[in-house]
């Protein structure tokens, strides 16, 4: 019995060594293989915008994706406000373009144990300067990304997975981005001054980070999405 325990411990150690031994390139390739299963999808979800200068209702959205990099977010219930650059830095786009990047292994995140992989685009003219992926190396899932761009600062994606994890598709995506100051001339808006003391409203987020959260209720995968949707 003791022998059996020793043998299983040795096997477990060897297996974990093999997993750890995965190079960054291999890990990215494995993640890409998951995405490669998806040619297109149509997903339903709820989108919540949390930006200092916007108050908007929770939107019922349909998200369309088609290989290699087409992504469209449509608000079924109203005005489709889509964060600028969100399409270019979508997780699928980052992974698809990983071939054009130098892949650097940056070790593991202490708290979560996620593998940190940095993607440096070889094209110096590209808007994306650096993408950092935090990957669950057992499930081959990207849990977090941080993308720095030349024009629009840093974007972050946080992803939570559920029943579509086998395709690398998240159930919940939180997209964080930098926002700029919002100001319109009073002569244009003719605002009503209700006599309330001016200052930061209580319900206004303090920092200049905007967040968009999409919670998906379901995906229709590989059933075809017409190109007209992306126009």
């Amino acid at each position: 019995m003791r022998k059996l325990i020793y043998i299983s411990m040795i096997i477990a150690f060897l297996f974990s060594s093999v997993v750890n031994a995965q190079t960054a390139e291999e890990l990215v390739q494995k993640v890409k293989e998951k995405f490669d299963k998806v040619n297109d999808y149509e997903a339903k979800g709820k989108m919540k915008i949390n930006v200092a200068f916007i108050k908007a209702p929770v939107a019922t959205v349909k998200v369309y994706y088609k290989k290699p990099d087409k992504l469209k977010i449509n608000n079924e219930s109203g005005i489709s406000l889509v964060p600028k650059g969100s399409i270019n830095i979508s997780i699928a786009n980052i992974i698809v373009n990983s071939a054009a990047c130098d892949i650097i292994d940056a070790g593991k995140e202490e708290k979560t144990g996620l593998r940190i992989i940095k993607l440096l685009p070889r094209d110096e003219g590209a808007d994306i300067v650096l993408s950092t992926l935090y990957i669950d190396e057992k499930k081959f899932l990207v849990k977090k990304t941080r993308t720095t761009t030349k024009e629009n600062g840093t974007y972050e994606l946080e992803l939570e997975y559920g029943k579509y994890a086998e395709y690398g598709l998240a159930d919940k995506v939180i997209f964080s981005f930098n926002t700029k100051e919002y100001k319109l001339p009073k002569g244009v808006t003719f605002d009503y001054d209700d006599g309330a003391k001016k200052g930061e409203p209580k319900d206004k987020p303090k920092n200049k980070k905007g967040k968009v959260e999409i919670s998906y209720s379901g995906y229709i995968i590989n059933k075809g999405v017409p190109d007209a949707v992306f126009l």
Partner: protein
Amino acid sequence: MFQLLKIELYKIFKRPRTFIAFAVITAIILLIQVALKFGGEEYVGIMMSGVNSAFEAPTHEILNGYFACFMILNLLLVHVPILVALVAGDMISGEANMGTLRLLVSKPISRTELLMVKFTAACIYTLLLLLWVAILSLFFSMFLFGTNQIFVPREDQANIIATSDIMWRYAAAFVFAGIGLITVGSLSFMLSAFADNSIGPIVATVCVIIVFTILTQMEIPFYNSIKPYLFTRHMLGWKGFFYVKGVDGVTENGSVENLPGIIRSALVLLAYSVLFLSAAIWYFKRKNILT
């Protein structure tokens, strides 16, 4: 009294001047709607300039009937008071000018009752004009541009309101605008009681509105202390129904950011109306109509 009101309404609606206001309103609203229909995307772009830095927003979704109506009211409700003054400013001074005031006062009703009937007739005209504005700016815009959520641009933020949460706000906004226009009507009516010709009260009302509106919009600290007393500032209270509360950036359906502030503005406007009407009655009861 009712008979007298019918006569006053007949007098108002038999004058071509009355219909000038309706024609002007129709022309302005149609011109704005045509401009928005064929070149509205550029205008929406200006209104979206604060949001465009962070978001991509399809202008065709923003440019809908509700948004068009909001923009029309934004441009128009500064000018409608001038059209209200055209009729309200003529209610008493017009009679004095034509020499029919003495005849009117000789009727077996008190001067106060006479003024109340005339004021009621002016209010009915004002509300009909506002109803016409509502039909053209809201319902015709909905027909022309369709409906969607409304995007409300403000100086320091933008509010987006769900489609199902808009119509009651417009109803409330038009009721509020009615209170504001009646205040202008009562100012014009009071000046009309003081004068013996129509031009004076109409021009004086227009001047007061222009000066007060400029003072309301000017960001000079010296004038900030008088702003709460300017009725033109409170007249913008209709917009307050489109300023919503939010939790973590999410609009609360059915909410109004500062309802007490709007109610206070409505009360200030009503107080002004009562003040102007009382002054008109006080003066008219002592007015020498024999000269």
